[in-house]
């Protein structure tokens, strides 16, 4: 339940350690590079590292914003809660609905690429060779994850921690061997100068690069289950943000400046650079990290065997977090009266939000059908080629993923600015840097300049997405408009304010949040701030 609403809620146990908090975030965001690398290399070509750099800078701003918000308001609602509290109910709904789109895409996209990575060892699963088998396995994974979540089986924090640790070690080894034995700075510079893409492709690549940094919702998800979140979250988040940024930049630089261990040739036998195997080849795009690992001298012989398995497992964990996360966000939105109470209904037998899980899993399956249709039916393929620039299934999913992320993150930046102005009394143990002191409604506030920079960055990525993704341009806004109509009808039916916000006692809610988090010093500081502010206002009144 989101604080500020009326109904009671059983509390989540706060048992997540600093490493648990890191691995929780890493298993969500860390898997993204397995998907994003191939797509970005395919479009941004010689400027792939620049695309990752631009998206990475925006991501650092987003990460810092989430860190501040999650440490200040350690509740599991995530972006929609921050936006609802900072800007109001309707904007909270839009942000939450965009996050829900991302979670449903997350389920399909990561199950899809999990199968792509497996196809490196089991070629029968290659989409272009056996599209129906590929579709069937992905569908089976989505349905399987839905059932596991319905009966209440979740991946354990320990399992997440082990897989995350293995992946960090593995990626570090791949990059170390790669940079030591196969990286040629001169080749990188040459590639960037000769194969610089068109502005359109660079925008497209940049909008796809942001999908390598999606999943920061997990920071706030972890915040509710972490002890002393105001202290722990900033520590783990900064490490998480830098680790993910380093991997994304390192992979893209390495891919462009890689001297392959085994010579790569095109269909005519001409030698190719490593990154050139990705354009117009969706099969390769879906398993880029495994292909790169195999080309790293010495270590590649070993990495070629386990990286597809490790990638598939990590992607499957991420896919599961989509099923679990969507039901949890819907639950939080429902408790805040942004969605019908149906989504918060817990099944008596399994004690899980079955309706919510099944509803969003069905949406994930619909998205899968749209994504797989061009490969399954030649007639649909020609339709896509005619109206959607011939986008394939992976592009379709990536389009919507980028759209949902850019939309929700844009609102989170605005929510952060709103909260800095309207809630200056909440103690912030972590603040994003570069703040402008000013006065707002009689209170001393600090205006976050980084949030403005981040908003401009993510909004431009949203514009790139709308401009360069024919499918994302249609289906993304359609998702938002349908959701908004649903919201308006629901709020009217419930006789709640439709465009305005429901009155809530945020002061008591904040005290309760800090008490539950075990941040008693911060709670005392908050209560003292409130009393001092009230006394100041009373003094001004007389």
């Amino acid at each position, binding site marked *: 339940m989101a604080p500020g609403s009326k109904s009671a809620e059983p509390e989540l146990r706060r048992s997540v350690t600093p490493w648990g908090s890191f691995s929780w975030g890493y298993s969500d965001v860390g898997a993204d590079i397995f998907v994003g690398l191939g797509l970005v290399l395919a479009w941004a070509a010689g400027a792939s590292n620049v695309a990752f750099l631009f998206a990475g800078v925006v991501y650092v701003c987003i990460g810092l914003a989430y860190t501040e918000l999650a440490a200040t308001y350690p509740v599991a609602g995530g972006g929609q809660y921050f936006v609802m509290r900072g800007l109001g109910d309707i904007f909270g709904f839009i942000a939450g609905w965009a996050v829900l789109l991302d979670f449903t895409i997350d389920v399909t996209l990561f199950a899809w690429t999990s199968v792509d990575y497996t196809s490196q060892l089991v070629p029968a699963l290659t989409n272009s060779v056996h599209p129906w088998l590929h579709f069937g396995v992905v569908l089976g994974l989505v349905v399987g994850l839905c059932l596991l979540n319905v009966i209440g089986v979740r991946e354990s924090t320990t399992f997440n921690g082990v897989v995350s640790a293995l992946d960090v070690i593995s990626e570090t080894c791949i990059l*170390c061997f790669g940079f030591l034995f196969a*990286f040629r700075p*001169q080749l990188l510079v040459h590639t960037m100068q000769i194969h610089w893409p068109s502005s359109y492709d660079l925008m497209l690549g940049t909008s796809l690069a942001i999908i390598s940094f999606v999943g920061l919702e997990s920071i706030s998800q972890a915040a509710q289950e972490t002890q002393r979140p105001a202290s722990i979250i900033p520590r783990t988040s900064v*490490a998480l943000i830098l*680790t993910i940024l380093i991997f994304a930049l390192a992979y893209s*630089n390495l891919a462009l400046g890689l001297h392959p261990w085994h010579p790569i040739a095109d269909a005519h036998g001409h030698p190719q650079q490593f990154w050139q195997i990705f354009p117009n080849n969706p099969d390769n795009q879906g398993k880029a990290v495994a292909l790169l690992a195999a080309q790293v001298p010495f270590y590649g012989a070993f990495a070629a065997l386990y990286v597809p398995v490790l990638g598939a497992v990590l992607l499957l964990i991420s896919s599961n977090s989509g099923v679990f996360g969507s039901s949890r966000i819907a639950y939080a939105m429902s408790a805040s009266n942004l969605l019908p109470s149906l989504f918060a209904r817990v099944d008596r037998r399994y004690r899980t939000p079955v309706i919510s899980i099944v509803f969003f899993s069905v949406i994930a399956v619909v998205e899968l059908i749209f994504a797989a249709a061009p490969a399954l039916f030649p007639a649909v393929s020609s339709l896509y080629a005619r109206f959607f620039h011939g986008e394939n299934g992976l592009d379709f999913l990536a389009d919507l993923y980028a759209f949902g992320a850019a939309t929700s993150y844009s609102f989170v930046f605005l929510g952060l600015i709103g909260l800095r102005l309207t809630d200056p009394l909440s103690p912030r143990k972590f603040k994003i840097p570069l703040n402008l002191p000013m006065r707002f409604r009689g209170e001393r506030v600090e205006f976050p300049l980084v949030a403005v920079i981040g908003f401009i960055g993510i909004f431009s990525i949203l514009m790139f997405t709308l401009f360069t993704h024919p499918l994302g341009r249609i289906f993304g806004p359609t998702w938002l408009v349908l959701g908004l109509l649903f919201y308006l009808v629901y709020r009217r039916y419930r006789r709640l304010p439709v465009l305005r916000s429901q009155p809530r006692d945020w002061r008591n809610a904040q005290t309760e949040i800090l008490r539950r988090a075990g941040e008693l010093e911060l709670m005392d500081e908050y209560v003292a701030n409130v009393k001092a502010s009230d006394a100041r206002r009373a003094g001004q009144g007389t």
Partner: protein
Amino acid sequence: MLFFRALLAVAMVVCGLVILVRMALVLPAGGFAILPGVVLGGAMIALGVHRLSLIARVRGML
């Protein structure tokens, strides 16, 4: 365990420095093209230093 973590953090800083130096060597030919590599090196050094500072705090050295 803390010792290994510190070792990893130092390795991270060294790797960052190596990347920075290698990118600096191609500066005359690369120009703007070396920027992502420079940021990568910088980020690796920042992460290494961040982890070392956390370890130092745990050991009561800060």
